[in-house]
């Protein structure tokens, strides 16, 4: 029993307006049957300092990731995580979080690996809700547990592994595209060795050959909302030459910032095939004999 969509005119411009809600819509719908609001933050303590009334917390490090293998929870783990939070398969889940919704889009992406049907992002996230002076509480949310089915994770449709990216290299520019969403310094390879503080993330700096450099933040407006569709088209389509028919792989350092871009390309611009390479630079930059390009040019494999 999904909640009605937000009919806000800015959202209506996007390819899939049903994937976003405004702060006003959420304020009107808080407490509605069939709605669960999930806060997903970079900072593991932020939710506990105050959250949207009734919202539950999902921590990406300790709850969405498998604690041992570098992977996500499995179907059983996901069913428990949802069930405990009162999320059933037909629940409308609205995600919000800190840092321009990085972790909210990341959580939404993980929920999408399990095909959860109705997932939405609060446009502007935690920052906008707070900036508008809307209600926050430290009251503990105590959801009634529900049954969530054990659904097998689909790792083929919106997720890419290193081998997929290797196979993808030859297709870049021929119906395929790679998008690096890290900062320009990380892309060029300059940002790796800070004096005295060796960066632990990767032993090589640079980017995957052929990747376009489009830092994720270019899709975000000052108030942490997504930029209007026309602005996004100007960046990804006109400037970068991507097309909605392209087979796109997006990556960053560990797959969090690229979830933001995955969301933009998939749900706001309506690209048909976008995969998030969650291994990202911490895998690629440590792998033996994979091709790497340095400097500000895309390069080729």
């Amino acid at each position, binding site marked *: 029993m999904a909640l009605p969509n937000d009919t806000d005119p800015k959202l209506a411009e996007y390819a899939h307006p049903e994937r976003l809600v405004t702060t006003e819509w959420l304020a009107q719908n808080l407490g509605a049957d069939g709605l669960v609001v999930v806060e997903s933050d*970079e*900072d*593991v*303590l*932020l939710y*506990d*300092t105050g959250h949207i009334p009734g919202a539950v917390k999902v921590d990406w*490090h*300790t709850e969405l*990731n498998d*604690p041992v293998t570098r992977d996500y929870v499995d179907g059983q783990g996901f069913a428990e995580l949802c069930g405990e939070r009162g999320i059933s398969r037909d629940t409308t889940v609205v995600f919000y979080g*800190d840092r321009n919704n990085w972790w909210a889009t990341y959580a939404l992406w993980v929920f999408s690996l399990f095909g959860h049907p109705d997932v939405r992002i609060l446009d502007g996230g935690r920052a906008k809700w707070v900036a508008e002076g809307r209600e926050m509480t430290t009251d503990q949310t105590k959801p009634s547990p529900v049954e969530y089915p054990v659904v097998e994770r689909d790792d083929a449709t919106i997720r890419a592994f290193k081998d997929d990216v290797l196979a993808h290299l030859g297709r870049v520019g021929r119906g395929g595209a790679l998008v690096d969403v890290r900062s320009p310094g990380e892309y060029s390879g300059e940002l790796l060795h*800070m004096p*005295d*503080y060796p960066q*632990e993330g990767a032993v090589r700096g640079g980017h995957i050959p052929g990747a376009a450099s489009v830092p994720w933040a270019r899709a975000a407006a000052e108030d942490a909302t997504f930029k209007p569709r026309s602005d996004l088209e100007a960046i990804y389509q006109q400037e970068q030459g991507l097309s909605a028919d392209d087979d796109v792989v997006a990556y960053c350092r*560990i797959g969090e910032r690229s979830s933001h871009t995955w969301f933009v390309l998939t749900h706001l611009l309506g690209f048909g095939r976008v995969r998030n390479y969650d291994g990202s630079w911490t895998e690629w930059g440590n792998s033996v004999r994979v091709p790497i390009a340095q400097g500000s040019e895309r390069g080729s494999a």
Partner: protein
Amino acid sequence: MTLPPQLAELVEEFSDVGPKDRLQLLLELSQELPELPERYADAADTMEQVHECQSPLFLAVEVEPEGDRAVHLFFSAPREAPTTRGFASIMHTGLDGEPAAEVLAVPDDFYTALGLAQAVSPLRLRGMVAMLARIKNQVRSATAA
């Protein structure tokens, strides 16, 4: 492992409780991080940024010129970054006022004894490792002069 007494006490408090309570402790510590004194309030550019933290954290270290060269620590981190504030507060509670030699003697891996890896994740702990390294570097250069 010999730790300054306040830091040893913190480590004990953390290791005595389960993962959920460790988060609660860290939250309380984050709320206790002292405000910046006025002389740093308008001088953020004189502070050192700890880039390894997931949120902006600025750090200043002062070392007394005489005696056992006591170390004083000052931190600035936004309210929206309670975990980073919590880490800074651990440093402040544990090390502020300690002699330089004691601060330099803190093992770089002392944080493992806090048992936060499970509650917070190893990646997030990197910020605390970097904080200690940067504090030590500043203490070293201040005492070498």
